[in-house]
């Protein structure tokens, strides 16, 4: 699904990613853990195509080079990023935005655009699964949403857009235990043999609910250790300094 080889990225002449290697196969869920400033969010940004970075190395998605593909085309090809800090967009109705986004992506996939009725049915179902109040979706996008509501809204978008590769950038931060479980259920319910996930997190907590196939430790722009869930448990006990 995603092949990252010797990935380097810098912004304003400052190198953040210093040669990163990860291979994510279809159906796998990889977790990336790392201290503050290690480059976790940069990785998420680079994968989604955010402008402003100088990127080198190899980045292949479904066997094809991704580096020159713009942000919107990546989304249309099935890459989804759940933001650490979802942007507030005043004046834009959440439902309208979701419908526009979904139809854009369906169209790119060669699928028929969804009419309003089918869309409403879909959104009702998916938001119920996440325990979200539908009324929230008639509000302006992320405006005045609590931290938890914003994160749930990201997972809702993930469920609606049905990506092949979902990148979750610290989706667990700022969530209480109930919201964390809901978000984890949201992820687990979409896992299957074709879908891949890259979950970026600070804490092992989330990984108790979303069982990763692999755990990578990112420090100073490099993966310094990869392993299984036990690695996350070890990190929780001894901290990043205990990893060599």
């Amino acid at each position, binding site marked *: 699904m995603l092949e990252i080889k010797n990935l380097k990225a810098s912004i304003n002449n400052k190198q953040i990613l210093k040669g990163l290697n990860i291979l994510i196969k279809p159906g796998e869920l990889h977790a990336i853990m790392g201290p503050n400033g290690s480059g976790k969010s940069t990785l998420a940004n680079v994968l*989604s*195509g*955010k*402008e402003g970075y100088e990127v080198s190395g190899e980045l292949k998605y479904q066997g094809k080079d991704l580096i020159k593909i*713009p*942000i*919107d085309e*990546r*989304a*249309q090809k099935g890459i*989804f*990023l759940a*933001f650490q800090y*979802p*942007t507030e*967009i*005043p*004046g*834009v109705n959440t439902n309208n*935005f979701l419908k*526009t*986004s979904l139809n*854009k*992506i369906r169209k*790119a996939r060669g699928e028929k655009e969804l009419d309003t009725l089918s869309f409403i049915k879909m959104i009702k179902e998916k938001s119920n699964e996440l325990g979200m109040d539908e009324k929230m979706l008639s509000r*302006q996008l992320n405006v005045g949403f609590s931290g938890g509501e914003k994160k749930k809204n990201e997972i809702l*978008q993930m469920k609606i*857009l049905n990506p092949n590769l979902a990148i979750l950038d610290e989706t667990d931060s700022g969530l209480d235990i109930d919201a964390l479980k809901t978000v984890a259920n949201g992820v687990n319910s979409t896992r299957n043999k074709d879908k891949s996930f890259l979950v970026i997190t600070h804490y092992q907590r989330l990984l108790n609910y979303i069982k990763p196939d692999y755990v990578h430790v990112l420090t100073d722009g490099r993966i310094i250790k990869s392993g299984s869930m036990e690695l996350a448990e070890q990190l929780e006990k001894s901290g990043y300094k205990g990893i060599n």
Partner: protein
Amino acid sequence: MLNYKPSEKEIDKIGKFSVEEKNFRLENLKNFNSFGFPNKQEEDWKFSDLRDIVSKNFAKLDLKLNFAKDENVEFIKDFEHNYIVLVNGKLTIKNFQYEDSNQILINTYLNKDFSNKKEANPLIYLNHALSANGFNLEVKDNYKFKKILVIYNLFTKDLNENILNSQNRIKLGKNSELHICDYVINKSQKNFFNNVYENLYLETSSILKNISIQKGKSNGFFYKFSKNILLSKSNFSSFIFPLGFKFNKLDLEFNLKGENIECNIQAASFLRKGDHQEIKTRVNHLAPNCKSYQKVKNVIDLEAKGVYQGKIFVKDIAQKTDAYQLSKAILLDEKSEFDAKPELEIYADDVKCSHGSSSGNVEQDSIYYLMTRGLNRKESIQLLINGFLSEIVGSIKNQTIKSFIEKELYRQVYEH
């Protein structure tokens, strides 16, 4: 380069007047000719040099007194409404089918006040001198309109380097209520100048809600001076959506002369391709316990220019005034310009007045967020612009009118 100095003959072309009126018009003509169109040396015009704008865009400015009467009006079908039609400012059709006609007076405006007012505004002199058209609408005490009144402002296709001067007056009796939609339809592809002088008079406890919108872009050069009086407990609101004139200046003055008045002015504009628009407001709080609220939003692109000059004046006796003023602009290209001059002049000590102004580019983070959801850059910007402007539409309470305005605004943004 046009140096516009109309002569007495222009007044004679309009019609035969009593000696008193003729003298009044002549006096005003003399005053206009001694000033000419205002230029940037004058404080009120520092951001909009009208003399320069007129001289660059017009070789002549003829009065337009005769025009085809059978211009088709594209009536709004989205909601039931009363209507009047103004063709180049002239009242041609009136239809109040949903109302009790005994409660309404509508006729062509006739100025009967020939007292010589010293106005520091040459365009008002010009209007008094050459005014040829306009309407007068009065709503009797306690009468509340059942349906909205649409004022179709039609500009004919034969307008070409013409000047139109008109005067309109709306008076609401005590405890009456009227909702208006001012709808501009422009059929001329050529330049013309429209100079309007308006008076609104709201008696005690009356309600006037006004929405201004235009159908399509216009090559018109519009100036409107609106001098308004609000009496106690009256409630005025105006939502203005001018979506592209070559030049448009709205000069709005509100005099809050009684207690517990509410005055609400909100505007959202999408200016592009060299459009020049100024919204200038002056809200005079002359009595205690009144509220005024102003919010002006502009999206400016392709060398267009937006200006907002807003003044709140609070007289010493106007305690407990609550006045708010905010302007926001998004500039989409480097050659676009936004100028704001917010002013507070307060002589009372127990008041709540605030003002703010901001301008900037579209948030890059917002574009990024939307693009990660599959929208391309242009679609993301359009969605953001529409969102930015439609916040103002969101304050309109009537759902049918709101949807209509949303549709018009959406069309403007997406035809871009």
